[in-house]
């Protein structure tokens, strides 16, 4: 036991002269009077009248290792920061087309292309050719 070994180490350091003083001291040191039985009940009554000062949540935090206390603070912070970032990322990134939107887009392109190819007005072609003359 750590306690015993420490004490024996302490004792081995004392000189014989000191050891005699210690022996005399221990032999003739008066013992304290035994506590009256009422003292315990008095003390407990006083304890019940004086509640502890800090809230339990803060009290309990001292009982857990540092990494657990760190985790308890880090998790809510990570959630609070992560959620807005997640929604922001979703809002900024292009959304995939739904089936309806895809069909509408395809129809729009086909209509435009057909209008262009069947139109008798070819002026837009000559307009373009003039630019490269």
């Amino acid at each position: 036991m750590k306690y015993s070994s420490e004490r024996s180490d302490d004792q081995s350091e004392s000189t014989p002269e000191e050891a005699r003083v210690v022996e005399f001291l221990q032999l003739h040191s008066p013992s304290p009077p035994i506590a009256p039985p009422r003292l315990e009940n008095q003390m407990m009554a006083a304890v019940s009248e004086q509640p502890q000062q800090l809230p339990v949540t803060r009290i309990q935090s001292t009982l857990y290792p540092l990494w657990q206390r760190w985790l308890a603070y880090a998790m809510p912070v990570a959630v609070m920061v992560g959620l807005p970032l997640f929604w922001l990322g979703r809002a900024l990134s292009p959304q995939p087309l739904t089936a309806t939107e895809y069909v509408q887009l395809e129809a729009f392109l086909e209509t435009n292309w057909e209008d262009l190819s069947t139109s008798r007005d070819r002026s837009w072609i000559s307009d373009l050719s003039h630019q490269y003359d």
Partner: protein
Amino acid sequence: MVSIDRAKKRQPSGESEHDLICQCLRGDSESFRQIYQRYQRQVRSILFRLCGESQLDDLTQEVFLRAWKGLPKMQNPERFAAWLYRIAWNIATDYRRGAAQTRSRLESLSQQTQTQTPAPDLMHLHYQDLVQRGLAHLSFDHGSVLILHDLEGLSQNQIAEILAIPAGTVKSRLSRSRLALKQFLHQQGVQL
């Protein structure tokens, strides 16, 4: 005799000290009663040797009340015993400061009455009185170290933790207080 390093030990007749402290922190006063029962003898002994008998019950109660109120502020529940003895020492220090004048008057009175060698059957009582006066003769800091080490059985490292002083200081104070006590006893006619 109580070890400081027993915080996690499970007592044969009850819960571990760590569990008791956790329950106390949730406001369970019955768990604190068990802590009181485990430690009151040693706390009482320390207070008796540091302060005498006259206010012993009140001082003991004050130590445990202060411990109950201060439990939430305790930094390391594994070192509960050291923390409790530190409270006892602080209360003894306050008491000694307040009672310093009274004590010096009592010392002078008792020195006046100690003039004759008592009969053999009273020799033990006489030596007890000498030890008490010898301890009172020391400074409070030196006497505390002597009491905690030689009478209460705490190690030098444990005392260093309780009194918040270096272990080397504990060692030197212990050596000086033993020497001073020996000189006092010698002056009173005791040859060791």
